[in-house]
Each structure stands twice: as structure tokens, then as C-alpha cells.
């Protein structure tokens, strides 16, 4: 039988880590797997590898590969395939989007990759890194997925993914649907239940079909009519489905961040008191309840709640205090200058809603806030150029805390799009990327959080919420990190 | 012979305009017997057309019947169901409207428009219908009827369209044919043929005809009885012969005394520069277009040369479709000539020439079809006043005064100034068109059938106006007309056209008294003229009939 799901945009391409977006990753990663993958809590675990060992100096990683694994075309998977894939990824002609993460341009460089035997891969890097494995597991890098070389044409151009995943490529009617077929010879990694991208991964349905439906109301109608078995829905619709005995709702919080970014080099907002006043003026728990319809939880940390680094310090929040806000405004010498909040109306993020609520709260504190709504592409270009005062902006998932902080931090002069330019913080982030010792890392991240609360370069208010509604006929549906994950899901 | 039962019986009919309560028909009664031809004559605007339209219940929406009944074949038209009415129209009662130019659907071929009624009211096969239509078109004198079938109305001249309309109605052989000014645009020969045809029809099918006309000679020749109307009332009715010979009502007398008569010839100075000189004019109409075919163009004028002196009235007569309107329009600069040129006061004119502006102001035109040449969204005052726009020497008040003045000159009360064209009778529209052309006192007017819809009294008034203008302002006129009596009265010189060429031209007297060309003779002999009798009445006579010549103006010489 066929499980039908819906995706909001068509898959961009089947070439992992090359031409992709979140939706594409979600579909493609049913077909390809990398050496390592994320676990539920954002840590990295072996996937095609049996085990991963790091040398004491942190420069050599040894991957033992699992045996008995075949590609969709029946060919046996071995270290040789890994070498071929790595060469392909490192070739600029492949246009792998994560090339810069491994060729030294962003600091880290993979010096060599060798295969001492058919079941072993050894990688050496130029300096110790806490995020090397994380980068390999990143979904936007296509997990550095291992493909059979028949996936590309003679001339090296992309053809079709022949991977090792639980589902294999079926049919793709562009703009309509993408269909996967179960890979009968799939060998599942160890584990009794799915754990992120690792753990049990059996394809339980014969086929999985992703319909491309962008209108949320049509998706809803699809669910209700039974055309669509499962789909992510807007939080406003959750109560209705929760009350409907024919449906299950799985919800989870992911590692994406909803924020109000402030421009710290804006004449008005460069005063830290001003930014603190804004933070104090906002009643964030109410805001979160409002914009996520009660399904989100406030979180002011760059680290997502399921992470092992989500400590008590990370739970510290901005305090809502109107008196304090007014005091700070006076200190900043604020005289009613307008502050414009830029927002967009994409249905996937609560940008517009946040702007509306924030505007009302800021006005209540005597801050003259206005809203300017723009189309997403326009907003993004404003973000990158730094041409804004305040912006309701959302960031995609980063599991590693260091990467999560780095996502919005950097010096303004070289990267105008970064929000936080406190040198002290930047140093801490660099350190967090290098050291591997969890305790040390925890200390660094806690310090960063405290600094963030003081500096207020942005107000992170919550993480993304994923509400997946599925028909009762489906079993095993879980909501995880805004990706539909249809292995270990069965349909009756 | 037993008293024939009237086929149409109109009793006590009154009509009113909308809510204003203005009465346009006041308690009129008349009847028509089977096989009888009844003429309605009378003042322009007296309600003749409205009375006729009432018979087929096709009055304009704002005209209401306030009293009376109309019985046709013993059934009351006023209370008849829509369905019965439809069965009646066309089949039993045929109606030809006053303005043939606008009565044909501009986007439908002639053939289809003619076939329509026939298909509806008869059981002929397609081929039979085709034959009947072609026959009928030939009988009304349209040459090449089978090609005409696939032509559009705008490809035809005014007279041709009128014949097509008549043919379409006669084709159905109705019991009653109502013809509102059926021959205004027809030349004498065709007019005679058409009327003979109508008479023949009444004999063949016992068709009754109700004929509205200003042409008293025609009414006198063909009708059995005549009804005289004035100001919404029937002032007199009776046997045609006796009524005309001894009119009882004053209005009838007035009508008869206003009949045109030849004035003594005037001396026209031949100046070195003619006011208008036409030199070798050729006009081709672009061929009809199909999606993928291009036919050959139709030549409407074939090398016309003429000139008009200052103060001279040159009449153009000739067969319907001979190119008179085309000539007028080409001189007015509305159609670019294919060859040849037009000179105004000695200078050639073209839209780019320097004298063009001057020409525009000094050359005016009265269109053959007054209705479509009047902007439907403008009131009379605006329509006439518009022509004065370029007269900067007049103040606004003076202009207004001038408009009232000219309306009076053409016999319309000042109250007409606030009417829209659709609220006027045919003759009233025609007078607006004339008023518009002469209000600026131009040097030259092209008048295309300017008086065809006017009753003789008004016509006399207008012709007098022309003569006055001529005397006072030395204005010249190219006077296109079928009405030879009118031409005889007003023209200094006459040009006879046939098929796009001039067949004869000369002074009025020469043409009327001593026509050289065969065709001219034919024209002159085709229709009767009315000759005054001693006691205010008239009787029929024919040109070149010694009787007429004695009684006619010629005798005065």
C-alpha cells in the first residue's frame, strides 16, 4: 500500500547536498544515507558506519563500515564507494554546497581520506574540531550521502539517486508528486525504534508518495478526505484534528529558532539599553502562546530544548518588566523615534504574527513600533545587507550549539548579514567549535547565553513547532525536526 | 360591388410621449380596405410615422398609447399576445421604416437579412428562397442581385438600401404593407418601377398599402384614398382625386399651394476661379475582404469633372447608386480620391494643404442620412451650435441667438433645442442637419438629398432659405437630389450622372426642356408632376405632355 504525504514545494532535485531545500532533504534522505547521521537529540551517530573513532589528538577519524549493505541496484556497499563519493563531493564541479566546510575555506580541512581495507575509512583533518562529524551529518549537506556511481551519467552529470536508504527512487511528476518505493533488501541499522536518522529504519509501506500541495487549506482538505495520509499542518488547525478521532497528532519542537533580530549598528539600536528595553517590553511567553497558538514553548536560548547542552543556565529568560523598560528607554534617551519591524507572510513561519504582537507590546511600553511586510526574498536581501532595524526572522535548525550560535554571529564588517558582533562572543564560539570536551563546551555555551541575554542582539523567543497530523491508519508517525520521516511507518 | 370590409381599422388613436404628457397623436381614425392603396400626407412631425408604427405595435419605448384601438383583420392589435403579434408582423403586415440607412443590420449580409423573414413565414426550400430573393431584387432594379446577397449594407448607396428594404417586405406578400416614405432616396425611374411593382402586388395578392409620403405627385398617381395630417390630427381624408382637386381644409390648401415651381433662370456670373472645381475625380472602394481573399476594388466614380461658381446651385441628379453621394463625400474630403483633385477657390485641397482649415469652415455638408450623422448623445442646440465653434467673432449669446434663428429658418420651434435626435421625426432630423450646415453661413454646401423627408410647405421654406443665403452671402451649393421638381425649382445648372460618369450637364432650362441624353429623358418622363387647377387644387400631368407644358411655369415665359 501507498502512504501519501504532502509537501509544500516540489523537490528541487534528487542530487543530495547540491540543489536542495529543507523539503528536498526530507525526501532525498529517504533514499540516501551517509556514514553518520543525527540522533533524535542532535548528537551524531553512525549510520552506514558501524562505529566511529576519534584519535586522541582529534585529527584522525576512523570509520568502520557496516557489512552486508547493498545499493538499490543490488551492488555491494564498501569503502571503495566512500572514496569515490568523497572525491566526487570534493570536486568543485559537483557543486556540493558544503564544500567550503571541508576544503579549508571555512577553517576546517580534510587532509586525507583513505581506505585501509574494504570496511574501513580513515579521515584526517587539519585541526581538532567538535563539529566535523556534525558537518558530515548535516542534512543540508545531504549527509554526505553515499551513492553508487551509476547515480551519475558518463559525463559526470547527475542522473538519479542510487543510494542505500530504505526507500528507492520511484516516479517524479514535477509539480505534482514524488513517489518512493520500498527497498526490499534494506538492512536496518541497529535499534528497536527510529532515532533521528539512525536507529530502526525499515520501509514498512510499499510506496510513499509526496504530493506537492502548497495551500494549507487544501492540505487540510486532503487529510480530511483521506487523499493525504499525513502532513504538517498549521498550529491553528491542530485542535480540530486533535478532537477528530480519525486522526493522530504528533507534535514536537525542533532546533529552528524564531527570533526578532535587532540591528546593533543602527543609530538607535546601537545603545544596549535600547535593546534591553525592547526585550523588557516584550512579554515573550504571551507572544509565544499567541503566535504558536499555544503549541510552542518559550525558549530564549540558541540551544534547542532536547539538546544535551540545554542546561539550567540556558533556561534563563528575558524578564518582562514594563517599568524597567521605561527606565531603560529613558537611559537610552529614546524620544519616540519610529522602529520598523520587518516581517513576511510565509505560512511556514510566524513572522507576521510575531511582528503584530510585538508591535502592540512595544507600543504599550511607549516604543513607536511600525510594521513593514515584505515578500520573503526581499526580506532576506535586507537581512543579508543588514539594512533593517528589527526583523521577525527564523533560522533553520542547527543541532550543535556552536554552529547554532555561529549562525547569527560574526563581525559586521566582513559579514553584514550576521546579527551579533560582540568580539567576546565570537571568540567563545570559535572555541566551542574546536573543543570536544562536553563539560568545557557546556561552560562556553552557558557563558554565551548569559552574554546574549545581556547584549540582546536578537531576541530568540521559541523554537519551531512541528505538528504532524496523520490518519489513524498510519502507525509509527513521529514528528521530528520538520522532516517527514516515513520509515518505520506502516499503513493498514 | 359590396362595401369592402376594412382590413385595418384605426379608431380614436392617441399617443403620448412618456410622462411629459405631450400628445403626438390626437384621436385619429382611419381605415384601409383590402387591396386598396391609401396615402398619408401631411406636415413633417405630424405623427405619421408614429401612427404607422403603432399598427405593428413597435413604437419607441417612451411613446404610450392613451386611447383608441387598432383592429387588423378584426383582431385588436393593442390587446394581442406577443406571440400573435409576431405571427402577424412580416407575414400579414409588412412595414418599411422611414430611414432605410439605419434599418439594415450593419453586420449581416443582405442575403441573410432578406432570407430571414421568408424562412420564418413561408415553407419554401432554401433554393426557392434564394430564387425568390434574387428575383425580387432584380424587380426593384438592383443590378447584379446575386452578388448583392453576400454584400454588407454599407456597400450600398442610400437608394439601393431603400430598395432592399422594400424588396424584403414585398417578398413576404403581406396583406397590408406599410411604407413610410418608401421612395425618398430613389431616382425617378426606379421610383416608378418600384411603385408599379407595388401596385402589381396589390393586384396579384390583394395587398393593401398604407403609404406615407411627402411626394404629392406620387400619392396622387398611385393611391386610391388619401389622409391628410397636421399636428397630430387628421384634418381631412377622402378619394385622392377629388380631395386633391378640391381640398376642403385650409391645411390641405396650404400644402398644395406650396408645390415647387420653376423660378426664372438667374444670371450666374462666371468668375475666372470657380468656387469648387473637380478635376478628373476617380474613387474606388476597397474590395470586400475575406480572411484570405482580396477581390478587386469597386469603381464608384470614373473621372468626374465639374465646377461650381460662387453663388451657383448645381444640382446632381441621376440613378440611385450612380455615385452622387460618393461625389459629395469626395469633394468634402471624407473619402480620399483615387485619382484627380478638388480645387477650392482655385487651390487644390488635401488634408495637408494650407487652405484646408479654411475649406473645412467654408464647406459644409448635409448628409443623406440625417439620423446617423447626428451624435445620439447631443441635444439639438449642441448639434447646431457646435458648427459655430470656430466663429470667434460671435459671443456665446450671439451664438445662442443664431441657433434659435436658424432653427426658425428651417421651420423648427425654439423648444426643439433641448431634444435629442431620437426624439425627432425624420423630417425634423433632416432640418437639424440642414440647420447645422448653414448656421455658419458657409461659402459652399454639399447637400445630399436635403429635403427628401420634408413636406412641401417646409420644403418650400427651406428652399427659400437657400435662395436667401445665396442672395445675401453668395453661397454655392452642390445639390444632390432625386426630386426633379425640387431641382427644377432651385438649380442653376444640372448634372446628370449614371454609373459613376456624367452623362449630361447644362443649364437647368436646357436640361429640363431639351434633354439631350437618352437617360435624362427617361428620368424626366418617368414620373408625373402635379399641375395646378384653377380652384386651389391640383391634378396629375406628365412632362412633355402638352397639357402640362401649358399649365406649367413654362407658360409664363
Amino acid at each position, binding site marked *: 500500500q501507498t502512504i501519501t504525504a504532502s509537501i509544500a*514545494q516540489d523537490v*528541487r532535485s534528487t542530487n543530495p547536498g547540491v540543489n536542495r531545500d529543507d523539503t528536498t532533504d526530507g525526501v532525498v534522505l529517504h533514499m540516501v544515507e551517509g556514514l553518520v547521521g543525527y540522533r533524535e537529540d542532535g548528537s551524531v551517530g553512525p549510520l552506514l558506519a558501524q562505529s566511529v573513532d576519534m584519535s586522541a589528538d582529534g585529527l584522525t577519524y576512523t570509520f568502520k563500515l557496516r557489512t552486508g549493505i547493498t545499493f538499490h541496484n543490488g551492488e555491494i556497499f564498501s569503502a571503495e564507494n566512500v572514496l569515490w563519493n568523497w572525491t566526487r563531493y570534493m570536486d*568543485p564541479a559537483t557543486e556540493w554546497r558544503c564544500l567550503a566546510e571541508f576544503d579549508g575555506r571555512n577553517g576546517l580541512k580534510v587532509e586525507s581520506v583513505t581506505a585501509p581495507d574494504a570496511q574501513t575509512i580513515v579521515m584526517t583533518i587539519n585541526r581538532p574540531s567538535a563539529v566535523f562529524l556534525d558537518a558530515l551529518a548535516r542534512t543540508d549537506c545531504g549527509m554526505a550521502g553515499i551513492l553508487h556511481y551509476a547515480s551519475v551519467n558518463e559525463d559526470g552529470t547527475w542522473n538519479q539517486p542510487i543510494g542505500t536508504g530504505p526507500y528507492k527512487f520511484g516516479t517524479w511528476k514535477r509539480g505534482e508528486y514524488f513517489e518512493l518505493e520500498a527497498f526490499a533488501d534494506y538492512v536496518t541499522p541497529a535499534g528497536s525504534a527510529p532515532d533521528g536518522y539512525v536507529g530502526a529504519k525499515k520501509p514498512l509501506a510499499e510506496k510513499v508518495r509526496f504530493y506537492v500541495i502548497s495551500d494549507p487549506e487544501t492540505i487540510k482538505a486532503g487529510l480530511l*478526505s483521506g487523499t493525504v495520509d499525513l502532513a504538517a499542518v498549521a498550529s491553528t488547525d491542530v485542535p480540530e484534528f486533535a478532537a477528530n478521532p480519525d486522526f493522530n497528532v504528533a507534535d514536537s519542537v525542533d532546533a529552528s529558532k524564531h527570533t526578532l533580530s535587532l540591528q546593533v549598528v543602527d543609530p538607535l539600536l546601537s545603545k544596549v539599553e535600547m535593546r534591553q528595553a525592547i526585550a523588557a517590553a516584550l512579554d515573550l511567553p504571551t507572544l509565544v502562546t499567541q503566535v504558536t497558538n499555544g503549541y510552542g514553548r518559550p525558549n530564549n536560548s540558541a540551544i534547542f530544548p532536547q539538546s544535551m547542552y540545554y542546561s539550567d543556565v540556558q533556561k534563563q529568560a528575558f524578564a518582562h518588566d514594563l517599568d524597567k523598560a521605561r527606565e531603560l528607554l529613558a537611559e537610552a534617551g529614546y524620544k519616540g523615534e519610529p522602529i520598523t519591524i520587518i516581517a513576511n507572510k510565509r505560512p511556514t513561519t510566524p513572522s507576521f504574527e510575531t511582528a503584530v504582537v510585538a508591535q502592540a507590546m512595544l507600543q504599550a511600553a511607549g516604543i513607536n513600533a511600525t510594521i513593514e511586510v515584505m515578500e520573503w526574498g526581499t526580506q532576506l536581501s535586507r537581512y543579508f545587507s543588514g539594512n533593517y532595524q528589527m526583523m521577525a526572522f527564523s533560522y*533553520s535548525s542547527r543541532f550543535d550549539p556552536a554552529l547554532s550560535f555561529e549562525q547569527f554571529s560574526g563581525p559586521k564588517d566582513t559579514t553584514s548579514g550576521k546579527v551579533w558582533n560582540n568580539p567576546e562572543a565570537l571568540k567563545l564560539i570559535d572555541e566551542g567549535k574546536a573543543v570536544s570536551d562536553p563539560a568545557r563546551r557546556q561552560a562556553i555555551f552557558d557563558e554565551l547565553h548569559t552574554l546574549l541575554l545581556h547584549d540582546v542582539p536578537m531576541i530568540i523567543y521559541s523554537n519551531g513547532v512541528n505538528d504532524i497530523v496523520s490518519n489513524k491508519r498510519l502507525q509509527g508517525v513521529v514528528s521530528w525536526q520538520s522532516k517527514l520521516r516515513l520509515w518505520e511507518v506502516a499503513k493498514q | 360591388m359590396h362595401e369592402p370590409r376594412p382590413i385595418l381599422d384605426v379608431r380614436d388613436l392617441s399617443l403620448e410621449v412618456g410622462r411629459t404628457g405631450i400628445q403626438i397623436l390626437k384621436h385619429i381614425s382611419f381605415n384601409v380596405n383590402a387591396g386598396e392603396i391609401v396615402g398619408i400626407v401631411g406636415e413633417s412631425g405630424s405623427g405619421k410615422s408614429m401612427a404607422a408604427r403603432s399598427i*405593428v405595435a413597435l413604437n419607441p419605448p417612451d411613446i404610450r398609447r392613451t386611447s383608441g384601438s387598432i383592429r387588423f383583420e378584426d383582431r385588436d392589435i393593442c390587446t394581442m399576445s406577443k406571440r400573435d403579434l409576431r405571427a402577424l408582423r412580416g407575414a400579414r403586415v409588412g412595414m418599411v421604416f422611414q430611414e432605410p440607412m439605419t434599418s439594415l443590420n450593419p453586420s449581416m449580409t443582405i442575403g441573410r437579412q432578406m432570407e430571414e423573414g421568408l424562412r420564418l413565414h413561408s415553407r419554401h426550400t432554401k433554393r426557392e428562397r434564394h430564387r425568390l430573393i434574387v428575383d425580387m431584387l432584380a424587380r426593384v432594379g438592383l443590378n447584379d442581385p446575386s452578388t448583392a446577397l453576400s454584400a454588407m449594407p454599407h456597400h450600398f448607396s442610400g437608394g439601393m438600401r431603400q430598395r432592399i428594404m422594400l424588396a424584403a417586405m414585398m417578398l413576404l406578400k403581406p396583406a397590408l404593407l406599410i411604407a413610410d416614405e418608401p421612395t425618398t432616396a430613389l431616382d425617378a425611374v426606379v421610383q416608378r418601377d418600384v411603385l408599379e411593382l407595388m401596385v402589381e402586388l396589390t393586384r396579384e395578392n390583394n395587398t393593401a398599402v398604407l403609404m406615407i409620403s411627402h411626394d404629392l405627385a406620387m400619392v396622387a398617381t398611385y393611391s386610391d384614398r388619401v389622409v391628410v395630417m397636421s399636428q397630430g390630427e387628421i384634418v381631412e381624408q377622402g378619394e385622392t382625386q377629388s380631395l386633391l382637386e378640391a381640398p376642403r381644409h385650409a391645411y390641405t390648401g396650404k400644402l398644395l399651394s406650396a408645390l415647387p415651381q420653376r423660378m426664372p433662370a438667374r444670371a450666374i456670373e462666371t468668375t475666372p476661379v470657380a468656387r469648387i472645381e473637380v478635376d478628373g475625380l476617380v474613387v474606388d472602394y476597397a474590395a470586400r475582404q475575406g480572411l484570405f481573399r482580396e477581390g478587386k476594388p469597386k469603381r464608384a466614380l470614373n473621372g468626374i469633372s465639374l465646377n461650381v461658381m460662387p453663388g451657383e446651385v448645381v444640382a446632381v441628379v441621376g440613378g440611385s447608386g450612380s455615385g452622387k453621394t460618393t461625389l459629395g463625400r469626395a469633394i468634402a474630403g471624407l473619402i480620399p480620391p483615387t485619382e484627380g483633385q478638388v480645387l477650392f477657390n482655385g487651390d487644390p485641397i488635401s488634408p495637408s494643404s494650407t487652405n484646408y482649415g479654411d475649406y473645412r469652415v467654408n464647406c459644409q455638408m448635409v448628409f443623406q442620412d440625417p439620423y446617423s450623422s447626428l451624435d445620439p448623445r447631443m441635444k439639438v442646440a449642441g448639434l447646431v451650435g457646435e458648427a459655430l465653434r470656430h466663429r470667434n467673432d460671435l459671443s456665446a449669446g450671439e451664438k445662442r441667438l443664431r441657433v434659435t434663428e436658424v432653427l426658425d429658418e428651417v421651420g423648427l420651434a425654439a423648444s426643439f433645442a433641448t431634444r435629442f435626435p431620437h426624439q425627432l421625426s425624420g423630417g425634423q432630423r433632416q432640418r437639424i442637419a440642414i440647420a447645422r450646415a448653414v448656421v455658419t453661413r458657409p461659402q459652399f454646401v454639399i447637400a445630399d438629398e436635403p429635403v427628401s423627408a420634408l413636406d412641401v410647405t417646409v420644403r418650400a421654406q427651406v428652399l427659400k432659405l437657400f435662395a436667401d443665403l445665396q442672395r445675401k452671402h453668395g453661397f454655392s451649393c452642390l445639390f444632390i437630389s432625386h426630386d426633379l421638381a425640387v431641382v427644377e425649382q432651385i438649380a442653376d445648372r444640372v448634372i446628370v450622372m449614371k454609373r459613376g460618369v456624367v452623362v449630361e450637364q447644362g443649364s437647368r432650362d436646357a436640361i429640363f426642356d431639351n434633354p439631350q441624353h437618352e437617360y435624362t429623358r427617361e428620368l424626366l418622363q418617368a414620373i408625373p408632376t402635379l399641375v395646378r387647377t384653377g380652384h386651389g387644387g391640383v391634378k396629375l400631368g406628365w412632362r412633355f405632355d402638352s397639357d402640362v407644358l401649358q399649365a406649367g411655369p413654362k407658360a409664363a415665359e
Partner: protein
Amino acid sequence: MLKFAISRIIAAIPTLFIVSVSVFFLIRLIPGDPASLMLGDLADAASLADLRSRLGLDQSIPVQFTIWLGNILSGDFGRSITSQQEVLPLILGRLRVSAEIVLIAVLLASVIAVPAGMIAAWRQNSLTDVALVSIATVLLSIPAFWMGLLLLLLFVLKLGWLPLVGYVSISQDFMQGLLYIILPVATLLLHEIGVIMRMARASTLEVMQLDYITHARAKGLSEAAVMWRHAFKNAFGPTWTLIGIVLGNLLGGIAVIETVFAIPGLGRLLVEAIFARDYPVIQGCLLMIATIYVLVNLVVDLLYPVFDPKVNAQ
């Protein structure tokens, strides 16, 4: 006439050139660039620069334009930035889908609206007239995305008569195709009926005053024949022009309906391309739409003399 048609088609080339130039520069005026949109918030300076140079966006705009124009002239519309597909086949494929829906909808809308408008005119100021005009207006005031949703809820959810999403060309499988096409067509149709109907009503009223209508009645023709044979053709001119415009407009403008019914058509392609600043696709789409416009208008102009023989197309 044929000569004229050909000369008109040749005369369309400047139009297309104007479209190309203006769209090329207009979309580059819109803030946002495709590279950063593709990379999103994951962009780092290095990969951004990489991508931009790969897409040729690092060159000056006039240079980009010359390259693009050269390619177009040699028949190469380029590749989509986001999906890497070749633009021309992509657009043609999507166009077929949209064209099918739009043509059927406009045809049906005209077939319904023109007679309805004529009836309204014929019975001017009657209850029928007011009712027809009101219905048309109400339909007009329901946006397509609402109308689509309501139809969808009714026919798919409540009644379960029609499938929800997907698309089968009616040229491939008529019955299947029909099922999929009904709702989008109905949505479009209901929306366009109003405009066309009102135009038909107004121009019919204009014609109904004329003598030849009375004359047609005097022939004893039934009201239907009078309206159809005599009023229709003469009143159809402005309506005809409007239908041409509606047709052209819709081809680029049914994005909303394609979104609601998840149909892979040209409108959605264009909107998505605009969102993604997929320049080659936007440019290609607009050239395509402009070409269609030119053709539709050509047909409108060529046929205009049929309704008004006095007007010649030249």
C-alpha cells in the same frame, strides 16, 4: 488579410523585445538574489560567491542581458536556477496545463455570460436583470482562492464526488481529465462570468436602441432571433475585446487557482520563480505570456471586422 496577419506577427517582435528588456531589468530591480535565496540562512560568504559566479550573476547586468539575448535568439532559454531544468520545455509543459484550464473556462464563461448579459439587457430593469447583475457581482466579489476552497470543501469533502489534487490532461484521458479539471475550471469560470456578462449587457443595451432591431421585429422575428441574429453580433465587439484580454490575463494569472488545486501550471511556475528569483524562468515565462498575448490580440483584431464590417483591420 493574410499579408496583414504576417506583418502583424512581424510587428510583434518589437513588443517581445520590449517585454524582454523590461522584465530583465525589472526583476533585477526587485531586491533579493537567487543565490542567497537558494542558500537561505545557511549562506556563508564563500559558497554564496561560488554560487553567484556559477549562475553568472557576478557579471554586470548589461553583460548578462547580452548573453541572455544571444542565447534566446539561438533558441536557448537557459536553465532554471532552482530546478536546473531547461526553461523552454519546462514552460511549454506547464503552459499546456494552464492553457487547457483557461481555454475551457473562458469558453464556458463566454458561452454562459454573453447570453446572460443579453438577457439582462433585453429585460432591462426587470427582476431578471437585477438578479443576473447581482449574481454576477457577488460572484465577482468572491476571490478565487475563497471560491476554490468552497468548491473544494463542497465537492471533494462533503460530497466526495471529485478527486482532490492532481492533474490528468483531458487530451490523454478525457473522463479522468474532466474530473480533475472541473473544479479549477468552475472557479475561474464563476469569477470571469461577471465581467463578461456586464460588458455584454452594456453593449447590447447600446445596440438595442437602433433602428434595425425594430426593423427585425417588424419582420416578425421572435425575440430570441432578434437578440441572437441582430443584437448579438453588433453588440459583441467590446465583449470580444474583453474576452481576449481575460484570456491573456488568466494565462499568467491563475497562480491562485493552481495553488489551491495543486495543479502544475504556468501561473504557479511563474509565482514560484518570482519567489525564488529564478531569473531564466521568469524571463522565459513572460516572453511566453507576451507571445500569447500578441497572438490573442492579433486574432481579436483580425476578427473584429466580422462584428463590425466597417472597421477594417488595417
